[in-house]
């Protein structure tokens, strides 16, 4: 396992409520795990705990088998690449320089980037399909382009795990799909992937396993078919839902309107496509 949380509890303020209560989650090589749940269910807290950014009150967080608190951040950055939910493009950096920052954890304090570093940046740019942006300034990029630059920067770290927090928020369908395809492709090439998302249907199609959180507690964990059950989801999201399935068998979630018949049974047959 590259990332593992075992039975962890997190509290932000002493005496305050538990932000996470006995949650476990594991991500192995070539495995994509999606963390889903309503707003405030503890998804980002789980991610922050896995990265050693919040102390855990109980339980254990392991990165590559070693407690996360024992990792110097420089070594951790060579093992885990992170694409946070938001990051402002404050400085007029060139895209190539911004991606090179992913190499800082590999570089000496004063040494210039070596051939190997430039190659890593080049390959990261290519994988994210942004080679043509290399000389642009990051403060001139669209939201989708900036997001891909940050994925490229995380890839330039040459990590063993990639962690993404709502990577497709504010992206349109094409950019959203391209990003999930890219992440899945990276995972298939051996990376461990952890992605927080609100898109249950994309999680169902791309992730190997899904972790469902609610109010800081683990509701369900397993394959998409095991986790995305009508009753569980309706209870967790406090909204009536129906489950259908796509041709590849992955469950797809349809939120119901108040005018929909409430006696919806568990499965609706997939819609026939027009000839």
């Amino acid at each position, binding site marked *: 396992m590259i990332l593992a949380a075992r039975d962890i509890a997190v509290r932000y303020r002493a005496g305050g409520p538990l932000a996470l209560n006995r949650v476990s989650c594991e991500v192995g090589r070539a495995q994509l795990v999606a963390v889903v749940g309503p707003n405030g269910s503890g998804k980002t807290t789980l991610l922050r705990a896995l990265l050693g950014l919040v102390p855990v009150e109980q339980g254990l967080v392991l990165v590559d088998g070693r407690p996360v608190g024992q990792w110097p951040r420089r070594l*951790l950055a060579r093992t885990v690449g992170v694409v946070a939910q938001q990051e402002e493009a404050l400085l007029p950096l060139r895209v190539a320089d911004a991606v090179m920052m992913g190499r800082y954890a590999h570089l000496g304090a004063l040494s210039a980037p070596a051939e190997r570093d430039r190659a890593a940046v080049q390959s990261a740019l290519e994988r994210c399909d942004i080679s043509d942006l290399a000389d642009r300034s990051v403060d001139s990029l669209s939201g989708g382009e900036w997001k891909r630059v940050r994925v490229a920067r995380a890839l330039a770290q040459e990590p063993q795990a990639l962690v993404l927090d709502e990577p497709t928020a504010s992206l349109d369908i094409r950019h959203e799909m391209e990003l999930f395809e890219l992440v899945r492709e990276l995972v298939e090439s051996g990376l461990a992937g952890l992605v927080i998302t609100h898109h249950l249907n994309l999680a169902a199609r791309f992730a190997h396993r899904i972790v469902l959180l609610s109010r800081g507690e683990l509701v369900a964990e397993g394959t998409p078919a095991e986790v995305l059950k009508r009753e569980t989801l309706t209870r967790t999201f406090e909204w009536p839902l129906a489950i259908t399935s796509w041709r590849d068998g992955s469950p797809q979630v349809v939120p119901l309107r108040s005018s929909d018949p409430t006696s919806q049974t568990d499965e609706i047959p997939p819609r026939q496509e027009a000839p």
Partner: protein
Amino acid sequence: MSVRIVLLTLLVFACVLLGLSAGAVPLPLTAVWSGLISGQGPEAGIVRDLRAPRVVLAFLVGGSLAVSGAALQAMIRNPLAEPYLLGLSSGAGLGAVIAIASEAASPWAIPLAAFLGALAAVALVYRLSVVSGRRLDPHVLLLSGVVVGAFAGALMSAIMVLSDAPGVRNAFLWLLGGFGTASWRALAVFSAYAVLPLGVLLFHARSLDLLALGDEPARHLGAEVDRVRRLVYVCTALLTAASVATCGIVGFVGLVVPHAVRITVRPLHRSLLPLVFLVGGCFLVIADVVSRTVVRPLELPVGVITALVGVPLFALLLRRTLA
């Protein structure tokens, strides 16, 4: 890049020569040259003992203040951060005035007292601007800096009026900032305090790049954010203290110079910091030349010149960051 290095070298040489030749007694370049090289001629004393230490000191102080500004700006992620505006200079001034008034301090110890004053000021500024649980607002930080600076200034005035220590009478002029008292010894004192923090900041240039992205991205990319932040506080406090102790309070160098350099160079600190140092040196040498030639044979405090350049730029940048 190589064209830039040639141009910059020429600029540094031109500024140094200008600094050596201009002054109450203008000297032709030939006299400067013969005074420097051979030590012969009536001008040798002026060039070697008065102007050379003055120019070199102004250069090093300008570079140090400019580098402090650039480092603080990266850390606070705001182009308005600067030792003077964040209250470090006034804190250092207060520390130095207390040391002078107590009559106990040798010239080597005054920067140390200034350093303690600067650290206390920056701690107070930080304490004032961090509301528990809230993110640090750069504008609140600047406001706290100005307030703490005003408070330290008031204490300084009180001590200068009330104390009858012999050094204090000159302190008022000295605090306005100037290189009139520059000497090889002042240069040695300054260098002893400034070399290490300059080296440490340059060594952490890449961490400054990361800090400028924000705390969380910096951590994700491998920076030990809290350690680097402490280092920046200590190093900029040391540089400011050494500057204030040797030539008084000179504001806005750390604001003007990094801003000018960033217009032409990518904001990566490994190349930015050395450039900021050189340009800052040139800027203060020229400001010093202006200060001792505009109302010849009198001298304006050099802090007056830097403020005249710095305040309009501050106003411009403030409008831009608020927009």
